[in-house]
């Protein structure tokens, strides 16, 4: 097993509008991207589990042209409203770093 953080080149998060945070997991090697994709380790359910969300709240994309996976989840509150702790949504990717891939 290998963690995503040791396989991916970029793991980042950012607002996608004021109600969503989107997490991008990007690779520089087509072979690594394909291996992760074919491992079946990344699914909507895995990310729902990582963020303790229901699967219906998670959108998961395999974006071949960018050798990337994308996960879009609801913010806990609208960006910048009182109590928000991450205005840009830029530090919400930590639960993804240690997801394990069987390669």
């Amino acid at each position, binding site marked *: 097993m290998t963690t995503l953080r040791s396989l991916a080149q970029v793991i980042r998060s950012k607002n996608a509008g004021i*109600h969503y945070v989107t997490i991008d997991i990007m690779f520089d090697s087509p072979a690594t991207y394909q291996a992760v994709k074919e491992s079946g380790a990344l699914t909507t359910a895995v990310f729902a589990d990582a963020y303790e969300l229901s699967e219906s709240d998670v959108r998961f994309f395999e974006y071949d042209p*960018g050798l*990337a996976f994308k996960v879009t989840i609801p913010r806990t509150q609208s960006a*910048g409203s009182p109590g928000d702790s991450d205005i840009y949504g830029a530090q919400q990717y930590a639960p993804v770093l240690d997801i394990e891939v069987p390669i």
Partner: protein
Amino acid sequence: MNELRFLALNGLMHGNGFPESSLEAGLEADPAFIGIDAGSTDGGPYYLGAGENMHQSRAAAKEVLRTLITHARAADIPLLVGSAATGGGRVHLDWTVELVREIATEEALEFTVGAIDAEQSASTITQAIDEGRLEALDGSKPLTRADVESSERIVAVMGPEPYTEALDRGADVVIAGRSSDVSIFKALPVEMGFDEGLATHLAKTIECGGQIATPSTGGDCMLGVLTDEYFRVTPTNPEKTTSPLSVASHMLYESADPFVFVEPRGTLHTDDCSYQAVDDRTVEVRGSRFEPAAEYTLKLEGARLVGYRAITVLGIRDPVLVHRQLDAFLDRTTAAVAKKAKTQGIQEYTISTHVYGRDAVMGAREPDPTPSHEVGVVVDVVAPTADTAKGLVHHAGNYLLHADYPNRTSTAGNVAFPLSPQDAAIDRAYEFSVWHRMSVEDPLERFDISTEVVG
């Protein structure tokens, strides 16, 4: 084959600019226009609500704008600036147009500036509610009249048509209020009859200027070349490169879905696209598809004042408090503040405690909420007035400093304040109140366009 070339830059909103040499190199390609986006909602609702630019230095923004204007006028090509001064409201538009006037005078230039006002009256929006022309976006609640009336400012995100209208009225420099980033760069291509799929995808690719080039640090300039069969992008800075990966990846950036991108006139689909390297600096893209919408829609953004913010920042090192009792102690603190608020008749306020070193960044989503040996706490109060906000946050800080708790040894003080005074008034606090879209008959009807000869 038809070919259109144009330049896209970034670095205006943040005031950090771009290398002037990159713009000069780009102008050697004989571009038809220069475009730059100056707005965003990413920094939160404050800038739209308060009517301010994100970069707080007027002089810094002015110097970036001066570089753009002097070069565009020397080349005699249009300069299109979208989403003026971050928020794109009337106050942001006026602020930017005033910079243009000053620059024209100082540089002894005479030209026509076109200003496109994107701010909407409350009655426009409430009428749209009544007529059933509003749709909530991304899980927003249906918009009510109360939402509209409580909003400080509502802007409509324009499509490409107001840009071409301003140019048709003789504008050399167009300053637009809130705009789709894409509209800045697709307006002329679409009016000239280029394929809307390629034009939209090129505009989306190039909207952040040099951000798709490597290294992406700092603002920079990209050259976009559009034909009937493909588009190409190249950084004009010779020290930067692009790759099919860096270009394709831009569809991921700040977007919920990388294959589908919704704009006022319709939807861009990129699922059939190919991204090819022409050389190590230029990428060619084919296969973009545009699906025209049945109805023309304008996204609406609004912000409302929710009060005034004051904060206090403190550290806690005591292991009993940090490891065993922190949440209970913070709960008692907020209860003490609630009691104080009640005695003062303050009905609506919010208090948030962000515990750094534990879970401040991710809150309930933090997978490892084990505290460090010390934690930092930011107490954030938003209350109806600046005075009540400061009062309540001071009360919170004093409670944390002096209140008793089980097994306490720290009878001289529970927390470490790094600052004196220990509290800070921040400013007005806003939240987004409108995140909807409105269908319209005419792409121009919600935008007042004026032209003025400056200099």
